[in-house]
């Protein structure tokens, strides 16, 4: 696997469209459409795109929280999508997820201690005493005082709740964590604390992240490589520095130019895209982006471009390159 922790091949997720009284399936939404990429050991792969582009679905599909309709996810030479449920459950210890909304991802009726205790005793077979010790350790790791262990989620602020969610993900010493918009719901000052925490944990425990976010400045800060998605396809993938300085795909260029520069005077040429993302139920023919692309030609409407290497380690899917 030469340094790859996960290899994702032709991953495809479809959701049925149901209509009528009998709820017959009349079609499918291709949320994720045959995408392939690798995640290297100890790296942070950023996954960006606008709402509805399939980035969250991709993250969930890797952990089988959505059922992918085709494709494979290789983890340690085993296809996660093919192994049986109970085997997968054992495997899931190593693969965790942190959700966007710390208000809805924690059980409101469980104390922090109960929440972590469940994970530790059921999944890892800790005894009660061992678990109690580990809970203290975990809380300190994520920057919370162990005296909070007996409190309920509603007694914490948003940032503290996200720390609890991180503690829960860390409890099993995972190798891989999907961060699905993990800092998006937080105020900037709290957001920076959580970003620092995630980066510290990566250094200490060699965790690999798939960092899903629409906030490009955050992704730029935290990621080693970045993949850009548009309507269920990866349109560009490159090292962070390369992507942010030499974006090849017109969509990436537009996306980057839409991000405001944070300074008092610099103004940048902005590419303002026309229109909005077409729904995943009405995917345009040819290149999916041609309806909004400022450089589209006739060819773009007819043939779908393949993701190919345009520079060393830099992949993009566009006819114009």
């Amino acid at each position, binding site marked *: 696997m030469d340094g790859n922790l996960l290899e994702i091949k032709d991953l495809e997720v479809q959701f049925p469209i149901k209509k009528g009284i009998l709820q017959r399936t009349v079609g499918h939404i291709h949320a994720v459409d045959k995408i392939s990429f690798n995640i290297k050991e100890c790296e942070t792969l950023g996954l960006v795109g*606008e*709402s509805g582009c399939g980035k969250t679905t991709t993250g969930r599909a890797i952990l089988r929280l959505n059922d992918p309709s085709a494709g494979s996810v290789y983890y340690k030479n085993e296809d996660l999508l093919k192994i049986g449920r109970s085997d997968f459950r054992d495997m899931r210890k190593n693969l965790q997820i942190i959700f966007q909304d710390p208000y809805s991802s924690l059980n409101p009726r469980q104390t922090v201690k109960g929440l972590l205790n469940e994970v530790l005793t059921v999944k890892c077979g800790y005894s009660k005493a061992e678990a109690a010790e580990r809970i203290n350790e975990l809380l300190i790791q994520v920057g919370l005082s162990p005296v909070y262990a007996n409190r309920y989620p509603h007694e914490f*602020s948003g*940032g503290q709740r996200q720390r609890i969610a991180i503690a829960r993900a860390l409890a099993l010493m995972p190798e891989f964590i999907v961060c699905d918009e993990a800092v998006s719901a937080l*105020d*900037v*000052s709290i*957001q*920076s*604390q959580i*970003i*620092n925490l995630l*980066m510290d944990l990566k250094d200490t425990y060699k965790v690999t992240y798939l960092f899903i976010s*629409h906030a*490009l*400045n*955050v992704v*730029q*800060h*935290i990621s080693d490589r970045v993949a850009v998605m548009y309507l269920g396809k990866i349109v560009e993938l490159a090292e*962070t*520095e390369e992507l942010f300085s030499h974006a090849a795909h017109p969509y990436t260029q*537009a*996306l980057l*130019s*839409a*991000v*405001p*520069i*944070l*300074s*008092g*005077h610099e103004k940048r040429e*902005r590419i*303002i*895209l026309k*229109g*909005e*993302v077409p729904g995943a139920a009405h995917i345009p023919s040819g290149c999916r982006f041609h309806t909004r692309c400022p450089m589209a030609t006739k060819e773009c409407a007819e043939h779908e471009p393949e993701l190919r290497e345009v520079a060393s380690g830099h992949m993009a899917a566009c006819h114009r390159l």
Partner: protein
Amino acid sequence: MAKENIIEVQNLKTYFHTPEGIVKSVDGVSFSIEKGKTMALVGESGCGKTQTSLSLIRLLAPTAKVSADKIEINGKETKDYTKDQARGIRGKDISMIFQEPMTSLNPVYRVKRQLEEMIRLHQPELSKQDTYQRALNILTRVGIPEPQERIRVFPHQLSGGLRQRVMIAIALASNPRLLIADEPTTALDVTIQAQIIELLKEIQKEMEMSILLITHDFGVVSQMADTVSVMYAGKIVEQGSMKDIFEDPWHPYTRLLIMSIPGIKVKRGGRLETIEGAVPNPMNFPPGCRFYPRCPYAEERCMREEPVPEVIGGRMVRCLKRGVHDGR
């Protein structure tokens, strides 16, 4: 006359009287906005920025008490306005757009009815046909494709970006002098966000309208604002031109806020600044400087003395230790 201020606010206080005590959401806020300019009011959640704007148009909960030395809007002193008089400010002088367009549009009425209602209120002399025509014109102006079709749909049939455009259309229908934009782009994707910012700037130029932009997103601030007021715990702690605030923030809070955002001053993968602790409880503010419990530069004096606003070179700062953090 050199500068014409559309709005001038002095010492605005909005207190909520609750059974548990008095919540001082806005506690002595002063600012003014020139004609055709944009002021951004920036701060973390719960700092009182939205309550400040709602105080101007009197859309507050009944428990709120507003007092001020001056709230002059478009040349009229409005601080002692009654409820009925205050209704006159809304729409004609000030319009507002909100963060979540889905919750601020009425889901059971079509766009046509909601937009025409606003036009009819402010231009009752127009005939039915003229009202409809004007509605179409406004929709075209805010960049809605196929307005004849879109005017007949319900809000849920529109995408987020189009809904925000409809909101803007309704807000503009009355030709306001001041537009309050409360987190206008927070719920939108970046490419749509760029479209909406561009649209607001165009319309502002065309109508010579002033904008009070309320946001926690410094990116949007840098795109739109002429001046910036940074709010913390019910008070404005720093005020100045956008360039001054970004290039050389004087208040430690402003500085930490800017340094905590990835991609500005901190290099990739480096440590971001953080602000420890949380915004203080508005029922029980700390004595002295309200920021001292979280301020890395605080000293014993900050705990006792409340900093007074200092005005130097056209900008205001409220800090006893101004300039300490950057070695001056």
